[in-house]
């Protein structure tokens, strides 16, 4: 099994099925991917560049928005994406 699992064709992130080390190169169907940093097993890697506030797609669905610019090969997790749901901390901002 390819260690980089892209679930849906629309996805811009994939799941690393094993721990990934900085500089590792992966050949996916239509692109070559170089890991920009160490990524723990089952965590996510960016398949494309994603702009600030750009949607993060997994399962072909939006799982959150980028809080900073994400480059192809970056580690994607709570440090650079956020949820749009259940944001009681944002309730004041909307009003």
């Amino acid at each position, binding site marked *: 099994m390819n260690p980089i699992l892209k679930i849906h064709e629309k996805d811009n992130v994939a799941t690393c099925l094993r721990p990934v080390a900085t500089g590792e190169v992966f050949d996916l169907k239509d692109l070559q991917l170089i890991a920009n940093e160490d990524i723990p097993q089952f*965590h*996510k890697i960016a398949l494309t560049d994603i702009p600030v506030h750009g949607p993060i797609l*997994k399962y072909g669905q939006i*799982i959150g928005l980028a809080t900073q610019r994400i480059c192809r090969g970056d580690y994607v*997790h709570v440090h650079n994406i956020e949820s749009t749901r*259940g944001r009681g901390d944002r309730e004041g901002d909307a009003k």
Partner: protein
Amino acid sequence: MKLMGYQRENGTYGIRNHLLIIPASVCAVEVSNRIAQKVTGAVSLPHQHGCCQMGADFRQTIRTLTGFGCNPNVGAVLVVGLGCEGIQPSQVAEEIKKTGKPVEFITIQACGGTTKTVTQGIIIAEKFAKILSSANRVPFPISHLTLGMECGGSDPTSGIVANPGIGIASDRLVSLGGSSILSETTEVIGAEHILAERFPDAEERGKFLTMVSNVEKRALAVGEDLRGSQPTPGNIQGGLSTIEEKSLGCMHKAGHSAPFMGALEYGQAVPPAKLGLYFMDTPGEDIDSITGMVAGGAQLIVFTTGRGTPTGCPIAPVIKITGNPQTFQTMEENIDINGGKVIQGECTLDDLGEEIFKKMISVANGEQTKAEKLGHKEFGIYRIGFTF
């Protein structure tokens, strides 16, 4: 397909034959526990509620306690009350009696204190235990089986492997005429638009969507970010970043082929005239969620876990499946099925679905799960109000 179980007076079938001691309120928990400890095969339901509750929260607690008594896995029930509590033991006993199974109730105030109530309770429970010990399993159609589906301590392998595996087994059960319950409303946030399309009935679809938006409103009212509570710190450590990502993995438990027949309140029974796949409004917290589905009549629970969890249920067998090969290795004592084989390329998702279905059949017919062997009996009632 036929299974082997215990026939009840009301035409339902249990896959276990428990003697249940129900404390009507927290004040009767210690006495109930002592009775259960002294009688072989008896099990108590320790909880913290049953008094000074109001409205929908009060009704939900009664529905849960009576639902456990009515569950086909229970052969006889003793309700123990203090005597003055909000949930009157006579009321719980009367409701359970409608199933036709042996039910009695006692109160600590009427018996005259702890010691006398324990003594009286043991006499009644031993009489029930004798009746239950003579029961034999008989064949029954699989359409009488209701499955409850849970995921807890999730990680990304839950959404990729373990939950889709359960989905295959659930689709199979429903296609054979059985019922299956998807739960955990919090873990629908971000996936509700996909699940909603599978409700053919517009009214039931509306009910489902209202349940999801009500839970999100409750979370928003706290004034903080849901992240940290959902997903939990363990989910995040495992690699899940947002509630949407968690939900989009959770929903795979519901499979693909079966339509949702309706949306049930917490602890509400699956309508016998309209069997099939249902959604139940439960929290993402595992114990409260499983308790709701078992109160609604589920005789069997399948539970996926990425991080690993030991928990069980007092009256229903809980089958554990992990999609994470390391978790299976570290927590094999607690986990029945290793779905990590799919990640390692040793078998397909369809193979895993088949293995889960076969395990469901064998556990329904009497095989003990790891949670049962280890004596896990966690029980928790979902509260939606305050104690006054």
